[in-house]
Structures are given as structure tokens and as C-alpha cells.
């Protein structure tokens, strides 16, 4: 499949996308926003289905939570949505988010231990069995790392992909944020990631604060993230790429411009690869 380039579709842009159907390969939505029985949002999605490929990106399954009160119900709702729309891509995050009796509705940092890997392998197997398709798991940004971790996040994801056949959603901005927060080398991560498992790349902006760098998805992709992105393409080839913007969402054109920047840079790097290969 040739790579798709797309943007995250958020509520402020529904009308414009419905009316003008801009040229975009792929629209990403947050799966949970469409769990309702009916209503306007699902209507929007049905209207757009014929014109766009879809990526359903989950923020609430919390696959790394040991307590799984919510898991089966949530998976069932996701399965119904996936059956209805047959999206090209489905993904979740490498995180936890709930304990018995309470869901925190946040992407909490996952301990990267052997026990955690076994748990996440089991959960991903369950999701893929129910959905009858493979999903991708995304590396997240965190402000904290556990002392007891025995894997790097990419190592963890490589092993997860190897054991479950799942894909990796490689978020380059999150690599950059984690390099700032923990001194982990983003270039090393790009070097060792199982490239054949990477199904999608995420690009976004982040916020630098005194305490930590936060992936608020509230600004343009920064130069450092573009450089890492180019390095990925140079090393592993072109890949489906999404621009995410969730805080202070700007005009649709700003997102589309960012998407074109990703296309331009991919083409440039691919051209360089061809020249070098000769």
C-alpha cells in the first residue's frame, strides 16, 4: 500500500471538510468521540466515508491497565464502530489509565517491565481477535520514567509487535518530547524500531515548560521533529503520516499546509535515496 498523508479531523473542522471535501488521503478521528448511538458526529463520519481513508485512534481503551473493568465493554463499542466503518487504520496507545472502580481518562505512563509486556501482549491479542484485524500501538510521551524499567519504549514495542503481529504507530513528536524529558536518544529509537511494523507516523507540536516538555498538540511541527522525520524516511522509506492538532485548533488550511510539508519532505528524501542508490 502506498503511504497516505492525512490530518486529525476535529470538531471545529467538520463543516468545512463536509462542504469542501479538501484533498487529503486520510482522516484520523478519536474512536471514543463516535461511541454514541446516533447523532451529528456519526452522521458526519458516514458522509465522509466515501471520500476519505480513515484512521480510528483510541484514547480510552487503556490496554496497559491491570484492572480491566472497562475493557470488554469498551472493546465491544470499538468493534461495532470498526465493523460499521471499516477504517484503514486502527490504533491505541501504550499506556494504562484505570484501576478497579475508576477510569482516569488519561494516557498514564506505562512501566516497561516484563510483566507489563506480558499483560499488553495479552490485551493486544484480545483486541485483534475481537476486531479480526491487526491494530497499531503508539509510543507515548511521558514526563516520568520508572527506575525498574527493563526495556526502552521502542524495544518494548518491537517485542510487542513481534509477539502479537500488531503494528507500531510511531509518534516522532513523542520521541522528541521524551528525549527532552528523559535524555533518551530519538535517533537511536528511529535506528532500532522494527520498520516493517511501523504502519503510521504521527507529527505534532509540543509545549516547552519549566517542569517538562508536554505534547499538547497545540502548535506547528518544530524543526527538530522534522529533522527526525526525515531521518526516519531516509533510513526506512516513506510511511503513512498524520498531522495531529488538538489544542487551540487553527484553521483547516494550517493543518493541510503541515501535511503538504510532510509530503514535500518525504518526496525530497526519497529522491535523495534514489540518487544515492544509483
Amino acid at each position, binding site marked *: 500500500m502506498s503511504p497516505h498523508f492525512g490530518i486529525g479531523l476535529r470538531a471545529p473542522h467538520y463543516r468545512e471538510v463536509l462542504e469542501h471535501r479538501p484533498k487529503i488521503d486520510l482522516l484520523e478521528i478519536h474512536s*471514543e468521540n463516535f461511541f454514541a448511538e*446516533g*447523532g451529528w458526529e456519526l452522521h458526519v463520519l458516514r458522509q465522509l466515508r466515501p471520500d476519505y481513508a480513515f484512521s480510528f485512534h483510541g484514547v480510552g481503551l487503556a490496554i496497559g491497565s491491570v484492572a480491566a473493568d*472497562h475493557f470488554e465493554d469498551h472493546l465491544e463499542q470499538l468493534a461495532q464502530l470498526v465493523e460499521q466503518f471499516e477504517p484503514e487504520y486502527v490504533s491505541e496507545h501504550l499506556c494504562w489509565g484505570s484501576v478497579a472502580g475508576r477510569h*482516569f481518562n488519561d494516557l498514564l505512563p506505562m512501566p516497561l517491565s516484563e510483566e507489563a509486556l506480558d499483560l499488553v501482549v495479552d490485551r493486544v491479542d484480545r483486541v485483534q481477535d475481537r476486531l479480526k484485524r491487526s491494530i497499531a500501538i503508539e509510543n507515548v510521551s511521558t514526563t516520568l520514567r520508572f527506575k525498574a524499567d527493563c526495556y526502552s519504549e521502542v524495544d518494548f514495542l518491537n517485542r510487542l509487535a513481534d509477539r502479537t503481529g500488531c503494528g507500531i504507530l510511531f509518534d516522532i513528536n513523542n520521541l522528541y518530547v521524551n528525549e527532552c524529558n528523559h535524555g533518551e536518544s530519538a535517533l537511536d529509537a528511529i535506528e532500532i524500531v522494527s520498520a516493517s511494523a511501523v504502519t503510521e507516523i504521527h507529527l505534532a507540536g509540543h509545549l516547552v515548560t519549566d517542569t517538562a516538555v508536554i505534547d499538547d498538540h497545540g502548535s506547528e511541527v518544530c524543526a527538530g521533529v522534522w529533522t527526525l522525520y526525515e531521518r526516519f524516511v531516509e533510513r526506512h522509506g516513506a510511511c503513512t503520516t498524520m498531522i495531529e492538532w488538538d489544542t487551540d485548533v487553527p484553521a483547516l488550511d494550517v493543518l493541510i499546509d503541515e501535511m503538504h510539508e510532510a509530503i514535500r519532505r518525504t518526496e525530497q528524501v526519497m529522491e535523495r535515496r534514489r540518487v544515492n542508490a544509483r
Partner: protein
Amino acid sequence: MSTLAELQQSLASALLQADQLNPAGFLGDPILVTQRFGIYRGNIRVNWEKSLAMAFPVLKQLVGDDFFAAMAARYGHEIPSYSGDLADFGQKFPDFAARFEPLATLPYVADLSRLEWAVYAASQAADSLALEPAALANLNEDSLAALQLKLRPGTALMESNWNIEGIWRAHQSEQIEHRVEIKSQSRCMVRRPQWRVEVEALSKGDFAFLGCIQNAMFLGDALEAASAIDHQFDAQQSLVKWLLAGIFQRD
């Protein structure tokens, strides 16, 4: 309990109570770790507030942003979210508002927030089609009276000793109308004809009639009950009006 389960349980406690955090388990300077952990605590509060603000925009306007945020934080601690989808999170918020002491001076907010929740729920309700008036055109009086009509999904009937319908309506445009008589009884219906949710005031008779329909009474009995409650109620006129408005569900 496994190591991972214990760890998640202890982090969960620390997310709800700041003094429960043991920074020793994390890499880096303990003071920085504590500050960074606080970012997650903040995110969670923001998510609670955002999700409630989507469902209760009028209440938020009435009490102000800071008060609303503090209220959301108290609510989120007290009433846990059980789902990975925050859409249902506000379900118990009207009851919480009713017994939230700092709001005791605004006695209408409990009913107002019930109305707001009904509006929000209607926006998410299953899509449906309206029963066409022509479908009843050939029925004689007896078969008409024996019909059991259904209100469309998302429809809710609300009654209050406060003018919640008027207060809600005053907050629907940019120019908020401040002169609303709040101390008057109100009855209204929340419904979603297609994609937009509407709230409309009801007479005593219409409220009784639609309440009977909601309770699955036969059409004839429902009209009769409404006439007994409200002498101004015109059964035929009301039935025609609501049929034309498309409030009944097509099977």
C-alpha cells in the same frame, strides 16, 4: 496482587491525593518527579472540566469558569468515571449540583442541569425517523384510540418549579437575555428532530398527554387523561400538532 497491579493502584491513589506519591520509584530528582507527576493530576482535572463543560454550558456560564472548574474537580473525586469514554461522565452531575452546598443560593441549578443533561443525551441518542401523519389517516376512531405511539429516542419531558426552559433559552444566543423571570413553573420537552436538539415549552395538558405516551398508554387513554388534568386541552388539536411536528417514532 502483582507488582504491576500494586504499582498502578498506588499511582492511582497519588493521582487523587498529592501526599500519596512516593517519587523514589521514578528516575530523576524527587522534587522534579513530584512536579512532573502533578502534570498528570492537572490533565485529569482538565479532562473532567472539559467533558462537563460540553454537557453543562449554561450552568458554567451561570456560576463562572473558576467555580465550575472547582465543582468539576470535586465531582470527579467523588463520582469516578467508569468508562474510557467521558461522554457518560456527567450523568450524576445534576444530582451532585442539587446537593452541592455552595450552590444552595441558586436553587434552580439542579433542575436546570437536569435539562442540560437531557439536551446533551438527546444529541447522542439513536437516529430515528418521524411517524408520518398520513400513516394514521385511514384509521377509524377506535383503532386510533387503541394505538400505542412512541416518542422518538432522546425525547425527554421536564417539569420544574423554576423557569428552567426560560433560563436555558436566554443562554442560547451570544446576547444573553438577563431579564428572565425565574420563579415560575415550567414544563418543556427536549427532542432532536434531526441533528439539532430543541427545547420547547409545553402547556399543562400537553405535558400530561406526552407523559402518558411516554408511559406507553393507549392514545385514547392518554388524550382523555390530559383533558381531565387541563380543561383547556384540546385533544384533537394537540394530536394533530404533535403529529405534524414529527415527535412520534416511525416503526
